[in-house]
């Protein structure tokens, strides 16, 4: 519950519909659809897609895989209400916030964040096969990431000081127990350093961050497919019908090669580094993604991740990528990243104060 309001919100919403599990997540059965095609005969997947969704990665324990229309409508109305409340005017004659902090927890660190107007966390549950889904994960059937292996638990305990690329947010210094977490820029999360987005936005697997900047653009040629992630402007190039690079060549988003299986683009990614560590995985993470155009305005995105050193079995998720008319606004993160400097200055001052005591 330390990962910001959105996660709290989705957890609570998921709990709200928790019920004895009587149905397992059905596998996707794409309806017959004749997609537009490129000159080489393969489906044209190009476009800009908005990954924002209320559907969390993991399902609440015991919840059903599919929401009824009524449940989804009620929960979506609640989310809209939360947003509308956040947008409401406050007093123009207000006072400064309380000395000592405003009580906000987690990354807001007692000083608060910012208004809802800046955010775009999603307004609807993802629809797959005509069903409103309560989690992205469909396998294991309980919609949950499998437990860590004992080896992974041991490894992660030793690595607790190092934030992963998918760390949703950095921690409040008051809660930060890792020694040296503010010692230098390289100890800060990759998102804070403008290197990769948080929440595994770039992936692979590419996931919503439930916060903002949710667009992805696909540009396709016969030989390569480029997937541009709005946040933090990460471009992943998939080499078609190619062999993986030698194992000694490692990349932060891995080495992605693709091929077509029928009308689905299948992307296989290996050769990760140990700098990203998606959900605590090792550099031997293996991700298989399937992109299938399921309608004039939508792709179905399905992903399977495996890393025997981290989970005792592979796990799979899927969600719809709706097309959007919106344009990606260049992220250009470094040029005004005053925050990172301010954070490090703050850390030096705290150290100096501690020495003087």
């Amino acid at each position, binding site marked *: 519950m330390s990962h910001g309001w959105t996660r709290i919100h989705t957890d609570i919403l998921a709990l709200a519909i928790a019920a004895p599990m009587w149905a397992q997540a059905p596998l996707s059965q794409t309806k017959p659809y004749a997609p537009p095609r490129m000159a080489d005969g393969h489906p044209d997947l190009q476009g800009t897609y908005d990954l924002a969704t209320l559907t969390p990665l993991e399902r609440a324990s015991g919840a059903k895989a599919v929401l009824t229309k009524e449940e989804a409508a009620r929960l979506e109305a609640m989310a809209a209400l939360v947003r509308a409340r956040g947008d409401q005017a406050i007093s123009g004659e207000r006072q400064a916030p309380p000395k000592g902090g*405003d009580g906000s927890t*987690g990354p*807001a660190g007692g000083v608060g964040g910012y208004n809802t107007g800046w*955010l775009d966390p999603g307004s609807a549950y993802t629809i797959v096969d005509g069903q409103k889904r309560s989690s992205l994960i469909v396998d294991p059937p309980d919609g949950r990431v499998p437990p860590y292996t004992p080896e992974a638990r041991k490894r992660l305990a030793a690595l607790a000081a190092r934030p992963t690329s998918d760390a949703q*947010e950095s921690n409040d210094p008051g809660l930060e127990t890792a020694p040296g977490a503010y010692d230098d820029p390289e100890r800060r999360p990759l998102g*804070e350093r403008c290197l990769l987005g948080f929440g595994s936005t770039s992936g692979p697997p590419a996931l919503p961050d439930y916060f903002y900047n949710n667009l992805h653009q696909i540009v396709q040629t016969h030989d390569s497919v480029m997937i541009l992630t709005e946040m933090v402007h990460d471009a992943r190039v998939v080499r078609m019908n190619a062999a993986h690079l030698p194992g000694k060549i490692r990349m932060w988003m891995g080495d992605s090669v693709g091929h077509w299986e029928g009308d689905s683009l299948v992307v296989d990614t290996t050769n990760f580094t140990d700098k990203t560590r998606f959900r605590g995985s090792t550099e031997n993470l293996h991700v298989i993604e399937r992109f299938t155009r399921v309608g004039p305005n939508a792709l179905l995105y399905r992903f399977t991740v495996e890393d025997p050193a981290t989970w005792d079995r592979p796990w799979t998720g899927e969600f719809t990528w709706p097309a959007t008319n919106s344009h990606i606004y260049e992220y250009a993160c470094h040029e005004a990243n005053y925050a990172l400097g301010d*954070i490090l200055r*703050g850390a030096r001052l705290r150290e100096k104060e501690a020495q003087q005591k």
Partner: protein
Amino acid sequence: MTRAGELIVVACAAVIPLAAHHAFGGEFDPYRPVLLKGKVVRVEWVNPHTWIHVEVVKPDGSKEEWMVEGGSPNSLLRRGVTRDSLPVGTEVVVDGYQARDHTLLRANGRNVTLTDGRKLFLGSSGPGEGPPPDAAPLDKAKTP
């Protein structure tokens, strides 16, 4: 969840300032609350965070230029906000906390409003969510 429970959730979500993507608690000092009233002199519409420069006139008549940290501009664009939505000279009220390095006139934009309390940037078009997959085809769903 009961209706009452839902209302509690909604009420709580409405009053808790939203968390940002970096260590706000590391950047700003909870013991230096500020209330800034002044005119916008410049806006940096950039990532990862927008910075709104506000000129504040102190009681002795001298002026200070504060920088206020906002969110990412991308979402604002999708709500119909452009550079022209916050022109230089706009009177704003900001509550937040100063940077831990007190030599910096920087604060987080915990709440940034017009003088009547309306939150900036809002009241324009709705959020730019993508269409449901069964919606009618978009005119320009594909990139150029």
